[in-house]
């Protein structure tokens, strides 16, 4: 039942395996289709710049979903995540090239709650700049 990762085996300060995830323009198009978020700033450079953005930016929710992989890859069972929240502190600019933007995600356990739940804090950066703030997930362990 549920994840096999044991609450007892985890301490405050336990690091999660980090992740490195490239985001391309094609990723944004796929996410627009799958999520139904067709805001033009995520695919139209002309309009993105007209409203004062440097270029097309990734959907905040895409960044959030991809960063969350560090947590779900760690526990195995995605159903173990009981809460997940972030602040979008800086837009993720996705250039029209082959490299795209590379999201780097680190995470560690910052708190142990009752009921087998731990709090994980994520750090998500692109090119060294933090793109998510107060990124925290609550995860129910075995």
């Amino acid at each position, binding site marked *: 039942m549920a994840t096999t990762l044991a609450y007892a085996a985890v301490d405050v300060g336990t690091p999660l395996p980090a992740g490195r995830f490239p985001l391309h323009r094609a990723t944004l198009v796929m996410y627009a289709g799958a999520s139904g978020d067709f*805001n033009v700033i995520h695919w139209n450079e002309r309009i993105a710049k*007209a409203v004062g953005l440097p270029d097309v930016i990734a959907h905040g929710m895409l960044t959030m979903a991809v960063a969350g992989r560090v947590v779900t890859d760690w526990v195995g069972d995605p*159903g173990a995540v009981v809460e997940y929240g972030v602040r979008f502190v800086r837009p993720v600019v996705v250039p029209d090239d082959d490299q795209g933007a590379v999201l780097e995600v680190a995470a560690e356990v910052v708190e142990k709650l009752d009921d087998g739940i731990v709090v994980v804090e994520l750090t998500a950066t692109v090119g060294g700049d933090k793109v998510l703030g107060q990124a925290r997930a609550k995860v129910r362990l075995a």
Partner: protein
Amino acid sequence: MPLNREFVGREYTAAETYEVSRELIRRFADAVGDPNPAYRDPLAAQAYGHPDVVAPPTFLTVLTFRYFAESPVIDPALGLDYARVVHGEQRFVLHRPVYAGDVLRITSSVSDIRSAGRNELMTTRTEVTTTAGDPVAELYATLVSRGTAEGGA
């Protein structure tokens, strides 16, 4: 042009229910590049104790956009220019995982609209339940309307 503050407190319940399918979950997982087998293979999900494939933690954002056209956010009287909107904050509280086969209903409300410098911040709360009314999740979002505060544009 500032947002219409009269929208604070307005609540909206989607007329139609939303049926979660294995294919929708797979498509969302593909889009975010997540190969977790629990999103695709019912047996892998069942090994974790789930009745069917499980949706990624942020999947319910799909429901927000499914009912977008009928939500208060798109009402011209609110005055929101969607090209000026960036996402400020998002939080999911999941009372249980979402599974393929779930039939869900959403109720959304505008909790607050306030100015922050040149921008305006609009916070919304969305409650997701089963058709029987059992709680599934709560979504909290803050949208930033860039440069629309009084004297901001």
